[in-house]
């Protein structure tokens, strides 16, 4: 199995990662590692490369040089089948990306059943318990289109958890939500963090970063400019662009 050697530290290890879109150098010499149980929040202005970075971690975006170790498997440029790695990494998207033609429950059970990980009944039971945990169990037999954005995003979290991932990636999970629904999704993520889930989260929610993160990563122009624990990051940012960014984000 791909994860046989991956139980030690770290769970995600990104080394000298570089990525280009056509000729645009989108990620530049990225080095970042995430320990089991750690919560890392990545922030930065739009276009800074934070989404590209998180999408490289489960191989949804290809990269050109460098390497990423995820749960004991090594991702390298031009790699073929990443299915096994992806089954250990959960991902939640900005646009939810639920499957609209399936019920909430079917959304959750499809992956564990079709990958042979769980029998249909076990998958159902697991899905129902996870849906209950994110407070949408009563909607299990509805279609995604019948739910609010906040409910859909919580279903998306439950769907990812059904694969029992060892690390969860969040790509701006609250950016597409109406303001009054942001809190319910953040609360779900905080619960998840409190249960010890390893999380890498791209977000603009500075309150969430302050409350949950072990470390905050600031990116701009495809580069990591600063990594610090939230207390230090918000109280005394060192890089001048971090200072400017925080002024813009917080002084509103």
């Amino acid at each position: 199995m791909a994860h046989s050697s991956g139980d030690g530290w770290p769970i995600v290890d990104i080394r000298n990662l570089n990525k280009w879109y056509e000729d645009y150098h989108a990620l530049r010499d990225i080095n970042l590692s995430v320990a089991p149980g750690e919560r890392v929040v990545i922030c930065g202005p739009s276009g800074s490369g934070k989404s590209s970075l998180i999408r490289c971690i489960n191989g949804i975006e290809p990269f050109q040089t460098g390497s990423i170790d995820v749960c004991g498997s090594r991702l390298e440029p031009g790699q073929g089948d990443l299915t096994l790695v992806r089954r250990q990494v959960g991902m939640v998207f900005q646009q939810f990306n639920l499957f609209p033609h399936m019920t909430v429950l079917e959304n959750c059970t499809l992956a564990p059943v079709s990958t042979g990980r769980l029998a249909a009944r076990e998958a159902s039971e697991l899905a129902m318990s996870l849906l209950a945990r994110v407070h949408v169990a009563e909607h299990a037999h509805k279609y995604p289109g019948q739910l609010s954005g906040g409910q859909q995003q919580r279903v998306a979290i439950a769907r990812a958890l059904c694969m029992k991932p060892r690390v969860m990636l969040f790509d701006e999970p609250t950016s597409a939500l109406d303001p009054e629904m942001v809190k319910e999704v953040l609360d779900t993520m905080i619960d998840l963090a409190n249960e010890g889930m390893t999380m890498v989260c791209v977000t603009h929610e500075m309150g969430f970063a302050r409350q949950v993160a072990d470390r905050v990563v600031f990116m701009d122009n495809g580069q990591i400019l600063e990594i610090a624990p939230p207390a230090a990051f918000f109280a005394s940012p060192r890089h001048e662009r971090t200072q400017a960014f925080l002024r813009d984000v917080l002084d509103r």
Partner: protein
Amino acid sequence: MKQDDSTFVATAEIAPRPRPSEPAGWWVRTRALYFSSPATSATTILLSIVLIWLCVRFVDWGVVRAVFSTGSQGPDVCRQPEAGACWAVVAEKFRLILFGVYPYELHWRPALAIAVLGVGYLLSAMRKLWSRRLVGVWIVVLVVYGILMRGGILGLVHVPEDQWGGLPVTLILATLSLAAGFPIATVLALLRNSPRPSVGKAIAVAFIEIARSVPLVAVLFLASVMIPLFLPADVSLSKLFRVFVAFSLFSAAYLAEVIRGGLQTIPRGQYEAAEALGLGKMVTLLKIILPQAYVAVLPAIVNVFIAFFKATSIVVVVGIFDVMTAAQRAVADPMWQGFGTEIYLFVGVIYFVFCFAMSRYSATLGQR
């Protein structure tokens, strides 16, 4: 109490009130719909007059003055100057139209074959029966169809394929070519839609473009005349089979473009979500991408189905005896010459029943 309009705080909850009733009466509604302006009124009146005139004419010709039976006097009754539509010719010829030159005394067999196909259609139309068992149902349907039409076993007299005709041929040709064309079309669409160039993609693009730019008639001649020339003398494929292959491939090219349109409506996020969950390529395709793609273009798919169902009538040119060929044969009967209108109307009704059923059924599917 004066309300300041620059700042305001509500002091009381406004309770919901019933909606004011619409102006009632059929005349008010009719006027709003059909007589709202002078131009609308003029259009309404003009078209009503044309419509009523057409209806009166048709009822006069098709019912009032129509000859439903000639009794023992033969077609001459219909040739009286005051006679309207001669429905007697349909009564006389409907078995020829429905069953072609199939041996007359064995007509119960094609009739039963049509019924068996009908059962297959009805079972397939029921959403709650959609499962793998439907494949079994269709295998049974096709085997029973074959036994009834061909015979030669179970004590049934053998009837060679060149004596088959009429509706059973039209239905089986349309059903089988679309059933075979659909999966071929899906593969072609997927190949053509793939982002990376490949040999498969090149073949798919070439096939679709060529098939779409060649007339169906030419393809049929090719299938019925040319293919046998290339085959060794001792290999002979039945004409019906060759035409079936031609139709499948031809319809596949058209369906492929429709399905490709469906594939293009699937947002990238769906692929990404499937990838992120670690789903395999086949699962992603069969469970996530294709179901959504088909539904997105369902009306266009049905459109192709209807078009090809009607296009099967073109096999007339290669001498396969479908409903249309049978109708032509009926019209050509010297004894009953001059009643083509009635016969073609009857054939039109047959086609209409099937096409309208498909159209209505697809509308109920789309409602979901």
